[in-house]
Structure formats: structure tokens, C-alpha cells
């Protein structure tokens, strides 16, 4: 039985806190003497209600755009617009095989984006994702690793990715170095190490199981798309339905408050970067299969694509807010643009300009919505 009466002595919790008149009069004890100090049984509910009362109501449109669904709505609109343009300009756009091609192209950068979303929501940034993926792909496709079989290759890629993420996390959490610098250094070293191990050559994937990942289709849909969907599903559950995800939001929103609330911020930060590295490892196996090579040239500038997708998906660069679905929609928008341009036989330069314009517009829409919702 929730009782909204404030316990005496609890003052200054929220401006304009409702006086204890919300207690139904019938259950109030006869006030012959000062009422005993009854602790509120739903303090959290009272505080949230008071906070809601304190927040000024923004415009309906602003609140809609600001909500989780609304942020993604803008991106869905952009995607629908691109599809309309595609259907109008290219007659092969709306075919199943073309749509599957778009999804397959999006799968690798999408897996990476899942990891980067976690890191950015947690308040950090990871510039090394592209080259860590290259390093993992190179390490997993060396002659020695391939001789051990596909299981060892997969394990190797995941271990290298997680290991690089661990190094990142340790330096950021315990070394107290800014994430930008640490991951930048990791990007450069990972590329150097990848070039060293591969001798700057492309290492052909000879293992038939790994090579078959990209060509296998279940129910007509490529296996790569299934892997992508599985990673997104697990990531979504982890972000939105576990305490791990809640802690990520908390740490990204206000690390000091999170620390005072008892969260182990440093350990959690390390976990986030390990997760990002793990996603790079998965992407490494996918790209090794898709291109049939492991090479130090894989993943060039992928981090910019991933971060751009995360930002236009509605995640704050400073952390604390964001959605995974938004990031994935951002990836799909970019991949669809690439596909549209190739279908229309246009040059890549215009495509890059279009990408830049879309990023700016998307961020502008988000900033306006946030500003209007907070008055």
C-alpha cells in the first residue's frame, strides 16, 4: 500500500514538493499528538513524481522527437526517403537480392557499431575499432592459425579483439588517459602490428568453413545477416534489460555520481572496451570470410563510419543517452546511400559529400529537439 506522505524531517527534496495532503484523510491517524515519524514506503515514487512536476513541459513535437521512439522516427523517415529515391531511380533497387546485399554490406560495420555504441554511451570513444578488426583478421588468417582449424581461428580473432579492448580499457580506467588518445595510439599500433605479422600481404583464407560463412544462406538469407541480427539482439538485451546496460547509462551520464552511488566505474569502463574489442573480433571473422583475405588494409576509416552512425542514431557524444536501434538505423542509412550511388553509376565523391550533409542535418535535428524539450 503506497503512502505518499512525506516523512517529517525529509526536507528540500524537490522544489514545490507536494505537502503530505496526498494521504487519504480516512487513513490518517487522529492527530491529537504530532504524528510519529512514518518512513515513506514509496520514497522513490514520491521523488519521481516530484521531479516530473518540477520539469517544465516542452512542446508536444519536441517531446515526441526527444523520446526514444521519436529520435529513431526521424532516421526511419530518412531511410524511407532513400528507399523511395531508390525505387524511382533504379529498377533493381527493390529486389530481394539487392536488399540482402545492402544488409550484408551493413553487417560488418553494424557489428562494430554495436560495440562502439556501448563505449560512447558509457562516456568514452573508441577510434581503434577499424584497425583492431584488421589486426584480428590478420592474426586469425596466418598460416599457423589456419592450420589449427576454424574453431581456433574464431577463438584467435575474438581473443585478439578482446585483448586490444582490454589494453584500451586498462589504460583509460587505471592510467587515467583520455580515451581519444589511448584509442588513437591503439589504432596506430594495431595497424603496425598487423602489417608486421602479415608482411603487408593479403593472407588468403584457405579454411573452407570460414570461407563458407559468407556464401552460406539459410532460408535464402545470408548467414552474415543472421550473425549481424544476433549481435544486435544480444547487444539490445544487454543495453536495455540488464544492470550492465543501466550502469553504462549511469556512468556515461555522470561518472562521479555513479561512483558515489557505489558502481565500480573503472571495472565497468574496462568491460565496455573489452566488449567493443570483442565486437571487432566478430567483425574480423566476418570480413575475413567476406573478402576471403585477412589484411592490414581492412577497416580503414571504419571508426569514422561507426561513430557517425552512432551519432546520427541519437546517442550523445558525451554519453549517458542513446539507443542501439538508432545506431543500426544509422548504419543502414549509410549503406543504402552507397548502394543507391552504385546502382545509379555515380561517383564516390558525391556520395561522401551526401554522407557529410546527412550527418550534419541529423545532429541539427537532435539538438533542436533537445533544446526545445528542456525549455
Amino acid at each position, binding site marked *: 500500500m503506497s503512502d505518499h506522505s512525506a516523512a517529517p524531517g525529509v526536507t528540500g527534496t524537490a522544489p514545490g514538493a507536494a505537502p503530505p495532503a496526498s494521504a487519504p484523510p480516512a487513513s490518517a491517524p487522529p492527530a491529537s499528538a504530532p504524528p510519529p515519524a512514518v518512513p515513506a514506503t514509496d520514497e522513490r515514487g514520491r521523488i519521481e513524481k516530484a521531479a516530473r512536476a518540477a520539469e517544465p513541459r516542452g512542446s508536444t513535437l519536441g517531446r515526441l522527437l526527444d523520446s526514444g521512439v521519436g529520435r529513431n522516427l526521424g532516421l526511419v523517415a530518412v531511410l524511407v526517403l532513400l528507399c523511395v529515391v531508390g525505387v524511382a531511380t*533504379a529498377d*533493381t533497387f527493390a*529486389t530481394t*537480392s*539487392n536488399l540482402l*546485399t545492402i544488409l*550484408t*554490406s551493413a553487417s560488418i560495420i553494424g557489428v562494430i557499431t554495436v560495440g562502439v555504441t556501448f563505449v560512447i554511451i558509457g562516456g568514452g570513444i573508441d577510434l581503434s575499432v577499424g584497425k583492431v578488426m584488421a589486426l584480428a583478421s590478420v*592474426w*586469425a588468417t*596466418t*598460416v*599457423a*592459425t589456419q592450420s*589449427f582449424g576454424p574453431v*581456433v581461428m574464431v*577463438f*584467435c580473432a575474438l*581473443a*585478439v579483439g578482446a*585483448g586490444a579492448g582490454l589494453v584500451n580499457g586498462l589504460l583509460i580506467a587505471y592510467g587515467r588517459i583520455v580515451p581519444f588518445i589511448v584509442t588513437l595510439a591503439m589504432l596506430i599500433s594495431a595497424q603496425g602490428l598487423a602489417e608486421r*605479422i*602479415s*608482411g*603487408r*600481404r*593479403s*593472407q*588468403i583464407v584457405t579454411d573452407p568453413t570460414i570461407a563458407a560463412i*559468407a*556464401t552460406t544462406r539459410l532460408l535464402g538469407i*545470408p548467414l552474415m545477416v543472421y550473425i549481424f541480427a544476433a549481435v544486435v539482439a544480444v547487444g539490445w538485451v544487454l543495453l536495455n534489460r540488464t544492470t550492465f546496460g543501466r550502469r553504462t547509462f549511469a556512468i556515461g551520464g555522470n561518472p562521479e555520481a555513479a561512483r558515489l552511488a*557505489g558502481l*565500480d566505474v573503472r571495472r565497468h569502463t574496462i568491460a565496455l572496451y573489452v566488449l567493443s574489442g570483442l565486437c571487432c573480433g566478430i567483425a574480423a571473422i566476418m*570480413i575475413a570470410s*567476406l*573478402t*576471403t*583475405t585477412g*589484411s*592490414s*588494409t*581492412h*577497416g*580503414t576509416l571504419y571508426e569514422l563510419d561507426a561513430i557517425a552512425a552512432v551519432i546520427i542514431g541519437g546517442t550523445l557524444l558525451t554519453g549517458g543517452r542513446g539507443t542501439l536501434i538508432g545506431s543500426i538505423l544509422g548504419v543502414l542509412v549509410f549503406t543504402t546511400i*552507397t*548502394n543507391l550511388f*552504385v*546502382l*545509379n*553509376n555515380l*561517383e*564516390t565523391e558525391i556520395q561522401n559529400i551526401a554522407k557529410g550533409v546527412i550527418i550534419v542535418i541529423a545532429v541539427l535535428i537532435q539538438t533542436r529537439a533537445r533544446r526545445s524539450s528542456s525549455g
Partner: protein
Amino acid sequence: MSDPHPLTAGLRRRGFLIGALGVGATLTACTSNEAPASSANVAVAAGDNAVAGTPVTIGFSAPAADHGWIAAIANNAAAQAGQYPDVTFEAVNPTNDVTQQIAAVDTLITKQVDALVILPNDGSQLTSLGRKAMAAGIPVINLDRIFDSPLAYRTWIGGDNYGMGVSAGTYVGEQLKAKGVTNPVIGEIAGIDSLPLTQARSQGFADALTSYGFALGPRQAADFTAQGGQRVTANLLQAAPKLDALWNHDDDQGIGVLAAISQAARTEFFMVGGAGSANAMRDIKADNTVLKATVTYSPSMASSAIALARLVAQNKGMGDLVEKEVPTSITLASATITKENVDTYLALGFES
């Protein structure tokens, strides 16, 4: 938050350490990479030029090897220099950054090497560097990507990019004509579009197709890497539900191109490659993919450049020619490799 059970904490730490060591050991075991022994393309000097002359130092600068062709350039140059007892080979750090290449070559100029072999990242941007070296009395052998001014080099040696395109277009045209195809859909996967050599190749291809009365269909640019080739081809195959022929400029990116083709399970067309890598030649010989031919652009030009640099530095001419001076411009011809003649060229293929 201290662990209430120190014993389990200790066991956990030990387990973690052992696990980490195990993973580390596995990873270290997984790095060995005996590359297949790629024979470098070297030429043995013949006749009078085989006699050791005055000892010369040859400087060498090339871009960083991000694909097999450039790696083969560096390997061939080093191997050829090793053939001569009178040559000291000074290679500077390979880099894709123009300013760094300028700085590196400056050190060679200061050292006053006897000859300089340069493959510039971009010919226009390094022309002034070539002129500086020539003005300092160092003969410059310009490899592949040509400088803007003839004052910047003593000798240019390179492949025939336009001729490469013409060879590819001629092969495509003849095959389609023999099959009697009307209005064929011909695709092209180019390399890095901003390079003049890519534009020259595309021009040659288009001109050759016009002479057969065919027109070029979808054309997209990749970036000489396997992942770029795969991505661009996957999309291009969607743009063209039916293709008759495809020319891919570079066999390194061709690995990705072939991967995309097999993933889309498309077999109705034939493909021509470029540059002549060993992988491509093996595929042509096996004849189990759409790749039926390739046009060479051999990185053996680096070996020839070193040989020329030695001759220039020692004031000798080329053996079979009458003149006592090395020519100022040598364009290497582009050969078309098909299943019939692949065995003769297989030894010259470079590993990707």
C-alpha cells in the same frame, strides 16, 4: 568492495592469470607466417655490362606496400640490387605520405647517392623534388608514376597504362564478337580514381571497346584493396542483373571482386584482371572461376629500374642498343595472359 573470501579471491586471481597465460600462449603460437617463397623477378646482366664497374650507391624510395604489387616492387628492387657486387642499395622508409617521402628522399640527396630510383606517391606533387635531385647532379630514374616535367628525371620507366586498357578492351571485344553478342553489358572495376594511371587505363579500355562498336556499361572505382573490391562489386552486380564482361584493373582488389561474384553466385559473364598477380594466374590456369585472362603490369619494372640506375651511374649504355646512353623513356609493353600462355608467365607473377 573487498572480497569477503580471500581464499576464493586468490584462486580466482590465479585462475585468471593462468587463463591469460593460456590465451597469450595460443596467440603467440598463431603468428608464424611462412609466406610462400615468392621468387623476385631479377635479370642477370649479360655481355659487357656484366663486368663490375665503379662501385655505385643507388637510393630507392617507393610508397608503403599496402597491396601486393607495391610490395613486389620493393622486393624486386632489393633483389636486383643484390645481384650486382658493385651496387650498394640504400632504401629509405616507405611511406604513403607525400611530405614524408620528400623528407626521406632529401636525406638521400644530402648523402649524394650516385643514382636515385623513385616511385612517387604522386608524380605531380614530387616533381620539384626530382628537379632538386637532378640539379644536385644525381640522375633520377622515375618509376611508374611519371613526374610532370622531363627536367625532373633522367629516365622514366613504367608500364603502359593506356596500353593495358587497350589490351583488356581488345580481349573483351574479341571474345564478345566471337560469341556474337549484340549490345553487351560491359562492367569495369577501376582502382583509385584520383590517380592519372587509373584514368589512362579507363581511357584505353573505352577506346578499344569503341573500335569494336561496344560501349562501356556500369563503372565503379574501388581502392586497390580486397575489401574495397568486394564491396563495390557486390553493389555493382546488383546494378546489373545481367553482365557480359567485366574488367577489373588490379588483381589484388580482384581477390575481393571474385569473392563478391562467388557470393552472388553469378557466372553468366567472364572477367579480365590486371597487373598479373600469381593468384590470378593460378585462377586462370585452373579455369574454375569467371576470371579468364589478365593483362600484365609487371612489378618487374623495379628490377629494370635498378639495372638502368646502375648503367646510368656508371655511364654505360644498354647492351643491345648502339647508343652509349640509356634511353630517356622506356614504356614496357602489356601482355595479355590467357589459359594458353599462362604457364610461361606463372613464374613472373607476384604474390598478393
